[in-house]
């Protein structure tokens, strides 16, 4: 992989995705050692700029940075000068002036990472930009899938829930399409975007229709604020028609099906507790893959400022 930034799955070729997953496998080996650290990114400084709340992604990045011996600083919007009215570019330029090599950014505005990537020398990694993309989540999901099934091609994956507002769904659909999986989406018509036809997906509005013979059910979080936008009549109605209950799972889905969810889970809303904690669930495996994939991306993007005279 020879690129400065990682902004979205959309820009990546199939070969680049393969390379990231392959390196991530080696990174996973570090995570299994007695001393879980390698000196690979010594001297590299990473800034994590999070303008939106996050626990999973921020911690996963921070841990990945530590495991590879990078120095890192965290800037979260609630405690920064963003509140004092500083613009995004000014904040980023200030961070860069501190000789930061890689910037990991999460922002509510789609394209914010691209905006910075064009203007800064530092490498930029998109950790989620609005409803646009969340490439590191999609890559760790692809890794989890590959580990479970030893392949991605031809698997039948159904993504269920709020597709319209989900950057995770968008990145994952693009990634699955690129890797040759068969993608199905399911959700209330108000939450399935009209532009869905630009992807290679099959749309269904009835959950019980989509459950049979799938390899993976990927359940998305219901964002409660959507109800206020009148996109959902009520939570009760959503639960009634779209919640993945144990009963539905056993009745309609294959007995070998795998459940995934990007977190955080709303237990009892999009997924029943019994399903989330069942043997079908790979939800915690997704978290482990997340650290390995982020280590892989940090390694592949890092550019040490030394000469090329090697042995």
């Amino acid at each position, binding site marked *: *992989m*020879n690129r400065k930034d990682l902004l979205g799955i959309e820009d990546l070729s199939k070969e680049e995705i393969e390379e990231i997953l*392959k*390196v991530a496998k*080696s990174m996973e*080996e*570090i995570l299994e*050692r*007695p*001393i879980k*650290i*390698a*000196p*690979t990114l010594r001297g590299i400084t990473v800034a994590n700029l999070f303008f939106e709340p996050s626990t999973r992604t921020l911690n996963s990045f921070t841990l990945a940075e530590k495991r*590879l011996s990078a120095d890192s600083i965290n800037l979260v919007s609630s405690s920064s000068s963003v509140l004092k009215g500083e613009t995004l570019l000014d904040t980023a330029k200030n961070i860069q002036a501190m000789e930061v090599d890689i910037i990991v950014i999460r922002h509510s505005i789609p394209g914010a990472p691209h905006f910075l990537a064009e203007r800064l020398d530092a490498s930029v990694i998109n950790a989620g930009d609005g409803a646009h993309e969340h490439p590191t989540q999609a890559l760790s999901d692809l890794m989890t899938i590959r580990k479970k099934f030893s392949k991605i091609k031809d698997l039948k994956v159904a993504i269920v829930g709020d597709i319209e507002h989900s950057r995770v769904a968008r990145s994952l659909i693009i990634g699955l399409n690129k890797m040759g999986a068969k993608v199905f989406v399911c959700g209330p018509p108000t939450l399935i975007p009209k532009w869905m036809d630009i992807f290679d997906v099959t749309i269904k509005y009835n959950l019980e229709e989509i459950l049979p013979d799938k390899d993976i059910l990927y359940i998305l979080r219901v964002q409660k604020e959507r109800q206020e936008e009148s996109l959902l009549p009520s939570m009760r109605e959503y639960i009634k028609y779209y919640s993945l209950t144990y009963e539905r799972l056993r009745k309609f889905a294959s007995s070998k099906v795998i459940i995934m969810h990007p977190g955080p889970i709303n237990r009892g809303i999009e997924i029943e507790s019994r399903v989330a904690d069942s043997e079908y669930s790979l939800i915690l495996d997704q978290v482990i893959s997340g650290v390995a994939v982020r280590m892989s991306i940090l*390694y*592949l993007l*890092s*550019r*040490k*400022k*030394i*000469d*090329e*005279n*090697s*042995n």
Partner: protein
Amino acid sequence: MNVKFIEKRTMMGEEEMHWALRRISHQVIEDNPRLKKICIIGIRKRGDILAKRIAEILSELTSWDVNIGVLDITLYRDDLTTYGPKPLIGPTYFPCPIDELPVLLVDDVIHTGRTIRAALDEIMDYGRPSAVKLAVMVNRSGRELPIMPDYFGTSIDLTEGEEVRVNILETDGQDSVKIVEVKIDNE
């Protein structure tokens, strides 16, 4: 830019390499009269195959508990370059905990010593061996770090533009040590 390797001479053939590995194994036994268990770690690629061969000889000649592992030092290199594609990372595997165990580190060539430095750092991240010894097929001059092999097959001094190649049956189709000349065409 075209890089060409022109074969200049053969330093060792199949027979010589076979006897070199047996000699190294005998020296290891002689140096460790009371040993019961050893961990032999080969550095990828080629060092791991040589390690396997030494392990086979030691198992044949002694009653030691011989454990074989493989080390990929990519993540510990000090020359992960500025721009451009990154080297691929291979698997690292330790067969058992190495705490308080003697480790024999095996590689095909020692030259600057930087690979061995990286390997030592990586080993220390796995545990605290009682001792680490180094065996190589070719001891090439040009050290940049104070690291010396404890056992080696042959010693060579090369002039500028020359490189040494250790070929192994499993990966290169033959067992041999060859000197090649590096020619760069700028056309």
